[in-house]
């Protein structure tokens, strides 16, 4: 039994045919999924970004402020129960765009053009945050000290939300941002 000691020599017992088949099939499947992961980087388009840099929290904040000032096209006006306001930024296609996360906001509101490509710089200036683009359910981590560059091409016009999905403190659930695609 499995709970009693086993006499020596157990390593000489040959495997049953069924067991051999099962282990072989499982091994082939494991190798297949192992190969699939790196292979998808060459044949697929659904890979997470490989581009990232270290950056100080202050520098990233300055870059975001400059970016907002340069391309600001308006404000949202007071939104919801809390009457918070956001700057709306309309950057030119192909440009570097910045998305700053902090307790408990995403800044700015980005207005993008469908079919155009942008280099989205994602980071946090305090604790960890999670970028979840809703309703696409695309998720990336926003990490202080790291500039994570996501090359994005919005394909469909719409009003998207950014949900924070990394716990970041008392008002974590209220940390919702907006991306508008025209």
């Amino acid at each position, binding site marked *: *039994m499995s709970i009693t000691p086993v*006499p020596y020599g157990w390593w000489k017992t040959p495997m049953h045919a069924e067991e051999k088949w099962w282990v072989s099939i*499982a091994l082939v499947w494991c190798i297949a*999924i192992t190969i699939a*992961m790196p292979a998808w980087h060459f044949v697929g388009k659904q890979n997470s970004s490989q581009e990232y840099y270290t950056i100080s929290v202050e520098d990233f904040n300055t870059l975001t402020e400059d970016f907002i000032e340069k391309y600001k096209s308006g404000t949202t006006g007071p939104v*919801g129960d809390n009457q918070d306001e956001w700057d709306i930024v309309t950057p030119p296609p192909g440009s570097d765009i910045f998305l700053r996360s902090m307790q408990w906001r995403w800044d700015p509101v980005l207005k993008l053009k469908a079919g155009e490509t942008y280099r989205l710089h994602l980071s946090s200036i305090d*604790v*960890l945050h999670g970028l*979840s683009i809703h309703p696409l359910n695309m998720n990336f981590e926003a990490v202080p000290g790291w500039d994570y560059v996501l090359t994005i091409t919005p394909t469909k016009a719409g009003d998207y939300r950014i949900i924070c999905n990394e716990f970041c403190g008392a008002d974590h659930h*209220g940390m919702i941002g907006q991306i508008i695609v025209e």
Partner: protein
Amino acid sequence: MSEFRTCSITGLKVHLPAEKLIKINAVTAIVFLLVGGILGLLMVLTRWQAVHLLPAELFYRLLTLHGIAMLVAWIIFWEMAALYLTSAVLLNSRLAVPWVGWLQYLLMLVGGGIVTVIVLIGGADVMFTSYVPLKAHPLYYLGVILFAVGAILGCVVFFATVVVAKTEGTYTGSLPLVTYGAACAAIIAIITLSHGAIVFIPTLLWSAGLIPPMDAEVYRLIFWGFGHSSQQINVCTMVAVWYMLGSLTVGSSPLNEKVCRTAFVLYVLFICIASEHHILVDPGFSAAHKSWNTSYFMHLAVLASMIHAFSVPAATEVALRKKGYTRGTFEWLKKAPWGNPGWSSLFLSLVGFGFLGGTTGVIYGTEQLNILSHNNLRIPGHFHATVVAGTTLAFMGGTYYVLPLIFQREVAFPGLAKIQPYLFGIPIMLFSTFMMVAGGFGVARRSADMYGSGGFSVEYSPIVDISLSIMGLSGVVACLGGAAFCVIAVATLLIGKKIS
């Protein structure tokens, strides 16, 4: 030999100091299960958006404690009991250095106690993961370190006992498979708990204001060497308990010792690498680094689970066929002891862990697919299938044997015990499944209000409402199933009929 008693059921010699330690660790585990379960009920009643019970602050605080009470305290205290059981009792041996065992218990109790108090008074609203630079009170980290060090001592006592048994010749041949599996779990435990101690020492110093914070990504990498790899202790112990339950319920023997033991070795060698899948959508690590590490070195740790998934049920089939249930393909399964909670726990735990938990783990841990599951409800859906439907249910099944064999009392309320694994196992599988469905529509985990509050509004597919309602209902029923287990266990200790 007054330090021993002979078990009237198994004929095994039971070392009394070992028995005491098994009892105290098991009882403490069940107390934490009870606490964690009550918190779980509050969690499910909050995430069930139609009920939405707790205010945000309390939800986050109690969610932190729910994670720690269940994932850390209940499971690791039970594992300590399992380590002493599979070493001293199964090997007919005395427990080496019982005082170190008591030190293990004391450190874990004090550590767990400190963490619990600090979280409850609001000093550590940081979740189980406590990602830097989100800061908790220094005592929180100290509590975790004490707990981890205590658990490492338990592993040391286990290995010392195996050595004592070997040198004193209390058994002949090779270790029983169950003890072998427990040994592999203990090796994994030492690796992973060391990661915990390593990452929490600088975090403690930072929290106390003595050193600058460490890089957030470095913390995440090392933390998951503890946070996820410690779940592999559970996997490994759970598989060992599966083999034990197979033996105790239907008298099964492993089909091939070599295959089963090789599979356990694969766990030891490759499963700790798995922690990397938590940082698949993070900056700071290359795709090559992520792919290599999340594939657990060619998915060989997954292969190990696949082997156990075959050999555990196959061993019970052989045992049942030997009893004469040979008609057709499935007579053995029909005639299995479905009224024995040990058996039904084993079976449901296999199904829950294998079909729901393990598969989704491999899927969500794939680099590209992780983009669609990172930090949404798919993740807690996955680990409630592995750790609750899998590990917790297996440990409940194991408890139904620890009660008569170690506590020497007949299980109280046998009628309730018969249905308890179903009452717990089936709803928890539904709960996990529909959590994952909601996650697929982008509902975030660890959120006190998925609709946000105050600012931009968020809308979801109507399927989300239905999924969360099914999740909520089945979660409540699963809590009842868990409560039934606690009632049976406590009643057995208090009023269970003594076995002499």
